[in-house]
């Protein structure tokens, strides 16, 4: 009869971990933790993380492309707006200077009501609403000054 080499003696489960913990005063080992995970969780976790990271990277790339496109669009639109604004501003400044600084009230009235060719600059792009406003303002000021 062959001698059986396998150890017939058994110990309670986790005995050696508990022994080590009690001898070394170690905290509770992970295997004794009451928390559990679904079967094969850690085996599939790696793949899930890699997939999520890849998805996020693609999203970030798209987001940065959209951001760059939006910035470009804003810059282009801003350029055109400033161009239009500056032309209008120059025209308005010129009118304001001529009307308010150079003309007297009579000339102003003539300019508005009768002869637009009185002044020899192009009226193209002239903001007449502004001139009306300026005249109104001038009259109001004159009225206020006279009543004082």
């Amino acid at each position: 009869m062959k001698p059986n080499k396998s150890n017939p003696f058994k110990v309670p489960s986790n005995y050696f971990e508990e022994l080590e913990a009690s001898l070394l005063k170690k905290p509770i080992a992970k295997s004794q933790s009451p928390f559990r995970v679904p079967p094969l969780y850690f085996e599939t976790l790696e793949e899930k993380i890699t997939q999520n990271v890849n998805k996020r990277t693609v999203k970030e790339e798209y987001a940065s492309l959209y951001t760059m496109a939006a910035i470009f669009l804003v810059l282009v639109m801003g350029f055109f707006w400033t161009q239009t604004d500056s032309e209008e501003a120059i025209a308005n400044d010129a009118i304001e200077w001529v009307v308010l600084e150079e003309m007297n009230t009579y000339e102003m009235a003539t300019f508005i009501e009768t002869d637009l060719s009185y002044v020899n600059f192009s009226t193209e792009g002239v903001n007449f609403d502004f001139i009306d406003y300026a005249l109104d303002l001038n009259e109001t000021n004159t009225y206020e000054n006279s009543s004082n």
Partner: protein
Amino acid sequence: METEQSQLIRSLQDPETQELAFQRLVATYKERLYWHIRKIVLDHDDANDVIQNTFIKIYMNINSFQGQSKIYTWMYRIATNESLNFIQKKASKLGLSNSSWIEAKAAGLVADTYFDGDRASLKLQKAIASLPEKQRLIFNMKYFDDLKYEAISEILDTSVGALKASYHHATQKIKKQLSDETE
């Protein structure tokens, strides 16, 4: 001679080797980080969400890692912050404080499929959940993860002295709570 850590960081920051190095990083640290997160958020599904976000954050920020601390303490810090942010979001959605939310989670462990602790471990988890947030983190890292105070100090940006005091207070509170319940 280049250390293993600096070699890993170099591979992670090099676009050509990044993917492979990241897979190595995930393989090495996924379980440690998972258990760290799980002890904070308690629920498996929540821990699963947080670990995904943690690794995404690690990947996105790896180029800004200077190598001044150990990579695992840096990752632990990210995992801790992600877990706390997660709790904050969940709690505020329900109009609860963080501590009330975590205490409710601890109370629900009894019905959790992925928790099979006995009454004693359930009581221990409830007692841990009743600790203030920082003490809870310190207790988990010291008692369950067996991290050194120096490592916890780097993760939580707190002095070793303060950590020792907090751990002492935490153990006293837990002992008291457990003995009160058994009386």
